[in-house]
Each structure stands twice: as structure tokens, then as C-alpha cells.
């Protein structure tokens, strides 16, 4: 259907429907960014004017400011933790033949397969049962969130790092070992630099999936320990004004930057 073929009514209709569907996916995000700059407090189209005031307002709100900072903190720690747990596991999966390797990679990918609300409920119950038995509170503190978000990030890390490891030319590693490097030195000096783009993408993707998580965090947030998506959810149950659009715009901007960096490290469309 290029220049050679005549543009028929059908092909126009087909192109139009494809673009319409794309607009349906992207449009809402464009609209919410637009609304963040509306001057009037009651959202109506078109706006009477534009302002940056809603961003100030959002930052002055304790729930949003603290939620943003908490999500940032949890996302950073969880993505680093998942990298520390995920790199060795990926090496085992991609470099070693051993019985039970299939089972191990299935277990490591399980947090993606089990529905978020089910995994979140199970973790919440287990942490409360632990609290009843020992008196140590984890659910409702930052530790519960860190555990849940590390769990969310592990499959993404393992998947990306394993894929990078499989693309590395093995003979270079073997040459290093043959020339007298210990396996650890060979890994640090040869393998690690070769998979650096994969590691960068893994950290960024882990951060993003942690930052946007809703279902698992839902059970584990507590008073004064609420992540940004949950703060948005709570606000939306009672209010709808450009403040929420400003908050959404900040989240969209932050994630867009993270994904842009990830895309520069490895092609982003390859991740899915």
C-alpha cells in the first residue's frame, strides 16, 4: 500500500481507523498534561486561561510531595536490590547448565505471572501473621514496600540481564580465563562492561515498574507511608481538579525521562 497502489476508499478507512485507535491510547495522556496548565479549578474545555499554579499547589500538598519522595526512594532502592539479586541469578541461568535451571527461571519470573492483587494480598497476610507472632511490624512501614517493590522488579531485571548475557561473545570471557584471569576478574573486567547497556536498562525499567505499582502497594502502604500512585488514587475518590493533572504530568515526565534513557541503552521495543 505505497505510492504504486491507488489510494482507495478502503485503504483510507483502514488508515483512519488505525490512527483513531492510536489516538485512543495516547490521547488521554496528552489531555491530562494539557489540563495541568488550565487556569480554572473546575475542569472544562476549552480553558479560560493557563497557569503553572497547580504544580505549586501539588507540591504544597503533603500527600503528593511525600508520596513522590517515597516512591522515588522505594523505586531507587528496589531497583538496586533487584540488580544485586538478579545479576548473579542471570549469570547462573545464562552461563551454567545444571538440573533445575528451568525451575529457577520460572520462580524468578513468577512475580510477573501471579496477579498483582493476589501477590499483594498474600504478602500482606504473611507480614501481618509474622507481626502477630513476633511483634515486629513490616506492613505499613517502608520495609514492606521495599520488599514488595524488589519482588516486582526482579523478573524485569532477570529478563533483561539474561538477554544481554546471552548476546555476549563467550569466547572473549574464555580467552580472559585462559590468559590467567580468575572467573571473578573475567566477569568484572570483560562481561560486566559488555552487558552495561542491559544493566542500565534493567535499573531504569525496574525503577519504572516500581514507581507505577498500584496493586501490591495498596496493601502495604500505611499512615504517612503512601506511594504516589496510591496518593493519586485516594485523591481521585473525592476530587477531580487540575492538581491531579499536575501530579500526573510530573509522573509522566519522570517516567518518560527514565524510558528515554532506557531506550538509548537498549532498544525499548525489544523489551516487550
Amino acid at each position, binding site marked *: 500500500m505505497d505510492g504504486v497502489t491507488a489510494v482507495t476508499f478502503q485503504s483510507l478507512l483502514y488508515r483512519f481507523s488505525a490512527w483513531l485507535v492510536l489516538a485512543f491510547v495516547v490521547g488521554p495522556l496528552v489531555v491530562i498534561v494539557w489540563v495541568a496548565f488550565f487556569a480554572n479549578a473546575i475542569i472544562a474545555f476549552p480553558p479560560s486561561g493557563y497557569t503553572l499554579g497547580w504544580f505549586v499547589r501539588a507540591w504544597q500538598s503533603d500527600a503528593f510531595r511525600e508520596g513522590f519522595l517515597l516512591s522515588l526512594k522505594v523505586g531507587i532502592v528496589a531497583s538496586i536490590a533487584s540488580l544485586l539479586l538478579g545479576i548473579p541469578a542471570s549469570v547462573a541461568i545464562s552461563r551454567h547448565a545444571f538440573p533445575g535451571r528451568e525451575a529457577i527461571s520460572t520462580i524468578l519470573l513468577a512475580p510477573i505471572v501471579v496477579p498483582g492483587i493476589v501477590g499483594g494480598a498474600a504478602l500482606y497476610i504473611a507480614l501481618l501473621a509474622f507481626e502477630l507472632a513476633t511483634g515486629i511490624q513490616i506492613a505499613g512501614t517502608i520495609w514492606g514496600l521495599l520488599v514488595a517493590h*524488589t519482588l516486582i522488579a526482579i523478573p524485569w531485571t532477570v529478563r533483561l540481564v539474561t538477554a544481554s548475557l546471552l548476546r555476549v561473545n563467550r569466547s572473549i570471557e574464555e580467552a580472559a580465563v585462559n590468559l590467567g584471569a580468575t572467573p571473578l576478574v573475567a566477569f568484572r573486567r570483560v562481561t560486566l562492561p559488555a552487558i552495561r547497556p542491559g544493566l542500565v536498562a534493567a535499573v531504569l525499567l525496574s525503577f519504572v515498574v516500581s514507581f*507505577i505499582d498500584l496493586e501490591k502497594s495498596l496493601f502495604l502502604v500505611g499512615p504517612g507511608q503512601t506511594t504516589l500512585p496510591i496518593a493519586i488514587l485516594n485523591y*481521585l475518590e473525592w476530587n477531580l481538579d487540575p492538581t491531579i493533572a499536575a501530579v500526573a504530568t510530573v509522573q509522566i515526565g519522570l*517516567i*518518560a525521562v527514565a524510558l528515554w534513557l532506557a531506550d538509548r541503552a537498549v532498544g525499548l521495543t525489544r523489551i516487550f
Partner: protein
Amino acid sequence: MQAPADIAPPVVAGHQPRRRRTHRSLAPLLAGPGVLFVVVFLLLPLGLMLRYSLNRFVPGELMEVALTAGNYVRFLHDPFYQSVLWTTLWISAVSTATCAIAGFPVAFYLARTAGPRLKPVLMMAVVLPLLMGNSVRTAAWMVLLGSHGVIAGIVGWIVPGVRIELMYTPAAVVIGLVSVLLPFMIITVQSTLENADRSVEEAAASLGAPPYRVLFRIVLPLCLPGLLAGIVLCFVLAMNAYATPVLLGGPQMHMMAPTVYEQIAKAMNWPFGAALAFILMAVTLVLTVASNVLVQRRFRKWTG
């Protein structure tokens, strides 16, 4: 967000290592911490929850240790929870069907029509919204569907005097879900189309088949495995959706995932909430496994 397990690059085996003996002893040590983490914080809690789902709820004091199927029986017999399951199933089915019908032209457009310059941009436009978070995307739909929203405005402009109320209706939930799930469908179908042999389409066309016949007799059968995988993925994600039914459906709309949350975190009825969670997960896993088996068995000879 639930990520798509089915459309991810498979974790395949590496080469056979040369010095197997030393490596074999090292592998459990390397994978151990990560595996332990998932076992302790996901698999054991799931086991505990399964056990609790067989306990008996005692109002006022959490629960009583028992070995009863009462919670599952209650779910199947209580008209309220039957209607919750029924609402969840039909909303998911309608959303999935809409995704399949609306997603196919886009997938075809990306795989066959879009030029090399346009295609990466459009792919990003499909993938990026997936990772923006469901709370943000649902907030956007609340703005669009509200009584002063864009959609009401357009309808009022076309038909003056008509005021439509979309918020807190099943239609709003379906619209929100379709918008959230479409990218999964598009990517799954697009990747199957990318791998399908184009020469078959060209042969059919050059032998005189009109476009609609090429579409129904060649293209659709060829991308059926991808379409099926996309349908199962969308259905599973729709069944487990939380933010969309809560925010766009309002308090009168009861679907499975919000009900699990209410029972466990609000009503503190752990045995019943656990049973609900397991029914939800069972449906999810059965569908996922069945589709994987079906796709692999039935379509291997077609897709090569």
C-alpha cells in the same frame, strides 16, 4: 502493572559450559539469594494464604483454624458474589473483544503499512503508555468522561441540549480498560504479523484474491496464534484490574480485584478474601496455561 509474560523474549539456554564441574557447584550459590527472596516473599505467602482460605472466619477475632471448603462454597452460592464474578467476566470479555477488533488494524498498520521512519515512533507511542501507570491513565479518563469532560462536550456540541453521563457506568469501565489493554493486543498481534511470511499474502493477491479474501483466508489464520495470545493476556489483565473499576465504575460497580482488597484489608475477613484471591488466580493461571498449550500444539505447524 501486570506485565506480559507471554510476549517477552524467552529466557533461553546458553552454550554448554566447558568446565561443568566447577560451574555446577557455583550455580545454586549464584541463583540462591534471588530464588530465596521470591520463595520467601511470594511463594510461601501464597501457600499460607491457601491454607488460610480453608479456615473459618470468626467476627471479632480474625479466624479459627479449620479445614473447610466453606469459603469457596459461599462464593459459589452467594448471589452477590456470583454477580461480582459475572460482572467481572462480562466486562473483561467485552473489553477484550473490543481490543481484538480495534487492535488488529493498528497491528496490521505497524507491521505492513507504516514506513521505516514512522514505525519506531508509532511503536513508542504504543509502548510508552503501558508504563505510565494505571492511576495516571485512569485519572485522564476521569477528566475525559466527566460531566464537563471532552466527550460530553463533543456530544453536546453535535446534539445540542443532550447531556450524557458516562462516569460510573459499565461503559466507562470498558472504555478505560480498552485504553489500558490495547497496547498489549497491538504488540502481540504485530509481532506475529512481523514473523508471518508475506509472500503467501502476495501470492494470493497476485492470483486474483480480493483484499477482503486475503484478509480473512490468509492474514487472519496466520496471525491467529498472536491474536489468541493477545486475547488471553487482555482478558487476564482485565479480570485483575483494580484502578479502572474503582475509579471509573464508582461504588456501585463490584469487580473481583477490588472485592479481594475490601475483604482482606477492610473487612479483615482473611479466609474469605483468600478464597476470592485464589479463585481469581486459578482462572488467570488456567487461562494462561491453556492458551500457551493450545498455541504451541495447535499452531506450531503453521508458524514454523
